[in-house]
């Protein structure tokens, strides 16, 4: 009997130790070998980025010219003052604007510059005195009686980063320095909003992240017209010649690009890389047959049918083979001899003066009629025609400015904004673009990276390789580039410090790195491995192994319970 008991004990011990080995060695081994590799990701930092708190800082320098400050005011006016304004856009996004104003009086050279006869000259000579850094604003306050500005104009904004502000009438200003500042500050803020950014601009730039309440149609069309921020753009000019039998077209596109387009693009170089090319497409037809209007003796194209015009042409435009940047298309369509002249009518059935139209985020098309250049039937076909590039480029340049978002919002009353011509671009206009592009880049990159983090969280099977983690993390080991998170943090920090140029640079890197991470091919390697297949493989191994262990464990447990009962009954 005793030997049988010992045998039984030994069997129980063996079963228990096998179970222990399986649990301690087998299960971890199986777990380790079948795990999907996950490199370390800065999840906390990504979650922090999901709640975007952007602070935009502008340095404003307020310079008082002689005659604007009374001596006692001059002593008491503080050197620096900081104004902050917080705006909550939605639950996850808050914006803070910080205007850091520095007050000082004008030095002698600036006084001289302000004595120039016209505001434009004053602007130029003030610029030569000091070059203000990118993103900052200098406001010169001149006395009410100054003749620098024409009558009725309170604020003048020039080509650079300077504005001239007329001091109000002395009685409205008040004697106290506090009253003075209270009088000036809202006006300076207004100037800064025109010259660097306004809340509407910034919220429009955040449209990738924040769902805006549908505003008016007008503002929606405005916000959708310009291209989204991208590290580069391809500008393609295409000349469409549907009828090479009747006219041979020549356009001096190289010269035209050089003299009209290039100056603007050189100015915009900090924003993005631009590349320009052109092509001539023959036998390219429009998708709509224009109607003949006998009263005008011309063919007309209605605004409603414009949407269908492009589709057949677009197939031939060709995507850019050498890069993946967005393409801006500018088409010059020369109608064939039988459908000429061709005029475009707007929604009010009125002819459009420029004979051109554009589509948001796509480009523009202009119709160029040449039938009056044919001569009176004596010239043999095809006729050689030289296109007047001046006329064409005027239209394309206006369209290009719209597409790139270089549009001047109407200035508030009392403001005089120096027009800077078709090809030029004022420094402050560039700054405005840079502010909104930086914010847009940051918003897009954060959205990409947070949605990617969510995806990784939801789908356990995604492989997370080192190179992928590099594009997300702090530093990309392989490409020697900054990762998304680092670039984003740097961009946000630079925005806070008011270094607009660096902020834009880092935000561009953040966009690139986030795109690289999102489209990393290694994410897909193990993605598809469904559960039914897993079970099919595991069952033949696990079932025969686990069933005996489980059964013997149950048996041991039930025996132990019986024994305990027996003991209790014995005690009783």
């Amino acid at each position, binding site marked *: 009997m005793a030997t049988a008991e010992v*045998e*039984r004990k*030994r069997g129980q011990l*063996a079963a228990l130790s*096998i179970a222990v080995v399986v649990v301690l060695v087998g299960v971890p081994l199986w777990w380790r070998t079948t795990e999907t590799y996950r490199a370390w990701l800065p999840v906390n930092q990504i979650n922090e980025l999901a709640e975007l708190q952007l602070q935009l800082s502008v340095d404003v320098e307020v310079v008082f010219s002689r005659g604007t400050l009374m001596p006692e005011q001059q002593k008491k006016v503080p050197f620096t003052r900081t104004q902050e304004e917080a705006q909550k856009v939605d639950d996850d996004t808050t914006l803070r604007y910080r205007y850091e104003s520095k007050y000082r009086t004008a030095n002698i050279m600036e006084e001289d510059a302000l004595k120039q006869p016209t505001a434009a000259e004053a602007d130029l000579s003030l610029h030569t005195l000091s070059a203000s850094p990118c993103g900052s604003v200098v406001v010169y306050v001149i006395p009410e009686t100054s003749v620098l500005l024409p009558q009725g104009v309170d604020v003048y904004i020039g080509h650079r980063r300077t504005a001239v502000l007329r001091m109000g009438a002395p009685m409205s200003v008040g004697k106290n320095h506090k009253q003075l500042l209270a009088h000036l500050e809202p006006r300076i803020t207004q100037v800064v909003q025109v010259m660097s950014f306004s809340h509407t601009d910034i919220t429009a730039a955040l*449209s990738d992240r924040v769902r805006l309440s549908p505003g008016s149609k007008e503002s*929606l*069309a405005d916000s*959708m017209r310009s291209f989204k921020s991208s590290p580069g753009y391809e500008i*393609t000019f295409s000349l469409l010649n549907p009828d*090479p*039998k009747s006219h041979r077209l*020549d356009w*001096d*596109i190289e*010269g*035209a690009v050089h003299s*009209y387009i290039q100056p603007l693009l050189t100015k915009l170089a900090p924003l993005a890389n631009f*590349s320009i*090319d*052109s*092509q*001539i497409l*023959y*036998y390219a037809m429009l998708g709509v047959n224009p109607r003949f209007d006998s009263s005008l003796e011309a063919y007309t194209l209605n*605004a409603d049918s*414009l*949407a269908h015009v492009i589709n057949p042409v677009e197939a*031939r435009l*060709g*995507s850019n*083979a*050498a890069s993946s940047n967005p393409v801006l298309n500018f088409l010059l369509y020369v109608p064939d001899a039988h459908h000429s002249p061709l005029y475009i009518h*707007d929604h009010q059935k009125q002819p*459009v003066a*420029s004979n051109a*139209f*554009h589509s948001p985020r796509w480009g523009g098309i*202009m119709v160029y009629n040449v039938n009056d250049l044919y001569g009176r039937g004596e010239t043999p076909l*095809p006729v050689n025609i*030289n296109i*007047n590039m001046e006329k064409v*480029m005027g239209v394309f340049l*206006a369209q290009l400015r*719209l597409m790139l978002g270089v549009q001047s919002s109407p200035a508030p009353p009392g403001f005089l904004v120096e027009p800077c011509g*078709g*090809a*030029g671009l004022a420094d402050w206009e560039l700054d405005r673009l840079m502010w909104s592009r930086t914010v847009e880049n940051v918003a897009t990159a954060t959205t990409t990276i947070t*949605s990617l983090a969510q*995806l990784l969280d939801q789908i356990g099977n995604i492989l997370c390789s080192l190179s992928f983690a590099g594009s997300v993390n702090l530093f990309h080991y392989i490409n020697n580039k900054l990762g998304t998170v680092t670039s984003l943090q740097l961009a946000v920090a630079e925005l806070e410090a008011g270094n607009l140029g660096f902020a834009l640079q880092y935000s561009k890197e953040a966009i690139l790195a986030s795109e690289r991470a*999102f*489209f990393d091919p290694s994410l*897909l390697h193990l993605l*598809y491995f469904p559960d039914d297949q897993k079970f099919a*493989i595991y069952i033949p*191994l696990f079932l*025969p*192994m686990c069933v*005996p*262990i489980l059964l013997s464990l149950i048996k041991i447990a039930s025996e132990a319970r019986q024994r305990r009962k027996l003991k209790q009954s014995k005690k009783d």
Partner: protein
Amino acid sequence: IANSYNRPTLIQLQNTREEEEEQQTTAQQEEQTKRWEATELEEEHVHDAAVPPLAGDPPAADPPSPPPSKDDFQEELVIRPLHSGDIYASFQFRTVWDADFMGDQKVSHYRLFPKSLGQVITKFSVRELHISFTQGYWRTMQWGQPYLPSPPGAELWVWFQDTVTDVDGTWKELTNVLSGIFCASLNFIDSTNTVQPSASFKPLGIGNVTDHSFLRYATLPREIVCTENLTPWKKLLPCGSKAGLSVLLKSEKLFHSTFHSQAVHVRPVCQDPQCRTTSMELRQTLNVVFDLHTSGQGKREWSLFKMFSRTLTEACPLASSSKVYVDVTDNPQGEQFELSPATPLLTQAVVLGDRRTYSVYDLTQQASFGSSRSLNMLLRWKMLRPLLHSERYVAGYGLQAGEIHTLIYNHHPYRAFPVLLLSAVPWYLRLYIHTLTVSSKGKDNRPSYIHYQPSKDRERPHLLEMLLQLPPNSVTEVTVEFERALLKWTEYTPDPNHGFYVGSSVISALVPSVVAMDTNSTLDRPLFSSFFPCKEEASYFMRVYTEPLLVNLPTPDFSMPYNVICLTCTVVAVGYGSLYNLLTRTFQVDEPSPGLAKRIANVIRRFRGVPLL
């Protein structure tokens, strides 16, 4: 198999973000349909733009005269009745552009040259690019020599400029971009099927490049050529398929043929006889052989309309020359066939070592279009053997070893000439180079030059290049044995029992010519005779492609992994089960059980109610 798993999820993954955007835009869908708006032009823009902002620049408006045209487009069609009774039609479209692609200045303003191709050449610093898509095999024995040879499937060879530092990376990117442009699976070109020939593929354009590290050559024998490859090819033409010879290119007829080959060749050429400046030449060629026997209902009468279901009505207005040539060499006195409308012009050209006579139709002349606007030909044939042709096949049985036989025929009655043989064999056929034998007329024929690069598994194929002397009127046989490798199970194609293709071998030769060749390359010659530059008067260059091979590799049963898993699991479970049993079973001494008679007696006793034994 792994790929097909991945694809749907890839799309899903990338859609996730698009969906987010979509939700935003649905509200704006209405706007989208009529989003076009007229450009309101502010007066000041026009005014300001009218004055060029840079004072030094000449105003762009009204240059005195149109600049001299720097690019030139020619189109040409050759129709050659073949000895087999088939008809061979060869299109060539040539665009020459006096633009310097190799300079520092970026070329970006395109007229006749297609922009998409130009951008590729600029971006990847390509010196020469040759790409061909071929469906069917050119039967040299029956059809003679093609004007432009090409192997079945896709072939791509590129010379890069010597400024390229990472040639392999550039090549990979280039193949990906080209596969997008031509809608072909060129993206399957990787290091496993790319070779760097050392001698066979010299640049065809100007430039004496000897460093073959800038050359890449790859073939995809499996590539199927169809309409989706033809459409982008036609898009590269300035006139598209709207005017000129290209109206004939209708895919439903072109692909209903025994042989179809389309190619794009880009190379630098001399601009003037002194070769001071270079231009870029783009040749687009399309060769097609129509089978008369099957579709002609036994009649051998043919016209353009019957071949292409179109007739020619005009030349492409952009072409400086637009010509149709019909080979009438076999019809010297007109006793063999008749051509209508009557031949207005005859020309002679030496092509592939043979002087041929052609009727010429100049489409730029209005007189070429008579009342009928179609060409009808009545044809009769005589047999002529080509000087050089080749055959290749796999010999051997079983799935382990095999032998590749290449037969090269020299039909020249008295001249021996050397040929270069290039074969690129995938790594999974392990060539044994010591078994390489070359024999002609029963005797050993030692190659005077052998370049052999062994393969590396999953990295690069075998490359075997040799220079052979072909004795007159002989068959030279090159044999080499190989062993088939076992692939990993993910490396098999979706239908592995179809077999694996081995690309064509290439035979390049200088064939002695009966007639003197014209070595002046700048002379105005028809396009089809000027593709391969001619260096000597007594011989011409020729390239012959052998058949591609289809080799069966040992193919596993693909449900095998699961079976193996099941089997091993069962074995493990049985072994483990008995071990477990042995360890946990309680052993105890049992009393011997009563005998059978005793047990039966006990049962009976129980029935009777008597105490048991």
